[in-house]
């Protein structure tokens, strides 16, 4: 009881402090707010810069993508690393390696689907129909991040979800036979390696880390702007690889309590 009272007091103080600060905020959508128009004494407004210059710099119509993958690409790379580190941490904590019964032997998909009851047949057939569509849409989301909402994280989550759906509908072994453990860890590493590889390639060609403009001679593009645009697609693919595999890895470890034998 006492702890609840103390917790309530702490939460109340925190909340009221936050609300007290809100009174000072610029009004919602105010074009003259500091975030939109900049403040005297500082550098010119970055929002204005992004709105007016980012298309000229990168030839990417979606501002969010250019900020995410180019201007602040260093942050995004580390966000991907956060996802990867999360997957590794879950592996480190949950994975049970001691019990060496038998390695999950790949079962044919037909076996798992046909042997089940009618429920299985309905679910299995639906998944057969849905999973390719999900994955195709995921690829569209990844590739279309330049023009519409989307990109590596969203597309990666979709691909990961398609594997999770397979694991839920059939069983974990079926999903793992498509993407087994050493491979998903490798693919996650390759994803970040693609991202960071673009950065290092820029360093080798004389720019700073992730300065995609200098990749122009390697990517055979018309100008540094298009090189930026293409490299962003490249790093988005890297992000998608890591996110999708780690999504599945986290599900597989959580659902089977770290044994990777039987899922939910």
């Amino acid at each position, binding site marked *: 009881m006492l702890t609840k009272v103390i917790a309530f007091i702490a939460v109340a103080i925190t909340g009221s402090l936050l609300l*007290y600060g809100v009174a000072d905020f610029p009004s919602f959508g105010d074009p003259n707010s500091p975030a939109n128009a900049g403040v005297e004494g500082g550098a010119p407004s970055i929002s204005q810069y992004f709105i007016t210059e980012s298309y000229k710099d990168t030839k990417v119509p979606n501002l969010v993508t250019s900020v995410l993958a180019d201007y602040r690409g260093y942050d995004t790379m580390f966000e991907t690393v956060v996802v990867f580190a999360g997957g590794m941490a879950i592996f480190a904590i949950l994975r049970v390696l001691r019990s060496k019964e038998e390695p999950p032997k790949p079962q044919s998909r037909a076996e798992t689907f046909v042997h089940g009851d009618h429920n299985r047949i309905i679910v299995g057939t639906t998944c057969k129909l849905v999973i390719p569509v999900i994955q195709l849409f995921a690829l569209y989301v990844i590739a279309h991040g330049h023009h519409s909402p989307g990109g590596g994280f969203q597309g990666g989550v979709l691909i990961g979800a398609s594997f999770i759906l397979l694991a839920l509908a059939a069983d974990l072994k079926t999903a793992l036979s498509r993407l087994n453990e050493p491979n998903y860890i490798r693919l996650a590493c390759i994803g970040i390696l693609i991202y960071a590889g673009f950065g290092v390639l820029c360093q080798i060609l004389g720019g700073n880390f992730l300065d995609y403009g200098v990749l122009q001679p390697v990517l055979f593009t018309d100008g540094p702007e298009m090189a930026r645009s293409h490299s962003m697609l490249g790093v988005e693919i890297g992000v998608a690889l890591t996110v999708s595999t780690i999504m599945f890895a986290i599900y597989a470890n959580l659902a089977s309590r770290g044994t990777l034998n039987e899922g939910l």
Partner: protein
Amino acid sequence: MIDQLPAIMVLAPMFGALMIGLFGQKDHRVCFPIVFTSLIISLGAAIGCANLVTKDGTIDYFMAGWEEPLGIGIQLRIDHLNALVIVLIGVATTLVSFFSIRRVGALDTEKTPHFYILYLLLCTGLYGITITADAFNLFVLVEITSLTSYGLIAMGSSRRGTHAAINYVLMGTIGASFYLLGVGYLYLKTGTLNMHDIQAILQANEEVRNSNAVIIAFLFILMGIWIKMAFFPLHGWLPNAYSYCPSSTACLLAPLMTKISVYVMIRVMISIFGLEWIFIHLGWSHLVVILAVIAIVAGSVLALAQREIKKMLCYLIVAEVGYMVGGAWLSDSNMWGLSGAMYHVLSDALMTLCLFFVAGIWSKCIDAKEIDDLEGVFKKMPITSACFILGALAMIGVPPTSGFFSKFYLIRGGIEGGHWEYVAALLFSSLVNAVLFFRIFEIAFFGKNPPEGHGHDEEHHDDHEDLHPVLEHEVSWRVTIPLIVTAVLIVLLGLFNGPVVEFIREAFPPTSEIVSARP
């Protein structure tokens, strides 16, 4: 090549982690060479950067080359404040990696690659936090260090380690969210995330500077960092987390995590809000120094109550965090407190590293987890024990170890700032440390109840087998070498305290700008 050093320093451990993920899963023997190579590359780059800072002053590195206008890209900055911190991170992580080859600590050996992946990502995070000049980038890297350290702590075999990790996850997440909320408020008022740009705006624009939102932003950022560094009332997660995790994890986290958080606090104070605004406009320094005094006293008293060696060291860390927070907020006009706090970041990291190395060796090799188990350990393990004595003397503050000089600067700051309660707390804590460590020395040298007549037997025994029995229990060179190097560094840092402090003090604004906050 040279201008790429900051990026190489941060990225080398990350590439190492990826290489282990790709090639280390089948054959665990490739793990350590990869770890070592990448850490050495980072250490080399860190030393190179520090060298450049001594020669040319501040180094700026703009990620992806986005320089103008300030704030569209991400800026890294290495100056006099963090040049030594990155060298410290390099040295400590390399030494701990050496220590971890034998895996002194109960670890699932099947998970070696994953341990090293987390370890290297943690190093990337630490380097990144230290050199970034972007408030949001700092948050992202704090997330990396937190996630990896949760994993590393929970990897221990004991259930209590897992419990401690959950506790740490909750506290750490709250801390990180507070920091993020603070940065969000700051962004709403300034429209930028670049630390130096925020500072320019706060200095130029009185209306923004005095707004409540900025004050609350500062408060939340400060609370977030305090949770991360285990400042006294918020320290609850630390002792269990660091005492029930694998030894090599404890050796990495205990010296670096809290100290880097202290560095982040000082960085936020100097490079975002500015000392003048904090000390004169807000005038919280008295309050914070009193909190620090409570932290020092409480940490020391709690340490005195512990029977377990690692727990005791953990509470000493809590007390030491009090030293540094108090020192940073002393607001004396010559800023000896701030320089002392920054110097103590280095010196305390080395002392903690040394003591945790020894605690790890003891708990593994002679299964000594409690102070009473240490009976006669000096005879069995002379090298380890000698290093322990050195680390302990540094903790107490005996010259010429670095611990003495950091206390000297902190006390000088306390006297000049007129914070006598802080000076008294420091002296009290040194006294407690002396009592604590001499209690251990006594048990380790003479045993709890020195048996009479035992001495004769021992002498006889020694004559027979020369030096052999003395070094028999001593652990392998792979473990002792990092320990000895740490001990030597403690003494070296103490002997060269003058140049080091001079170097750090170049990072501070000219003293005339800061007037003492005393009324």
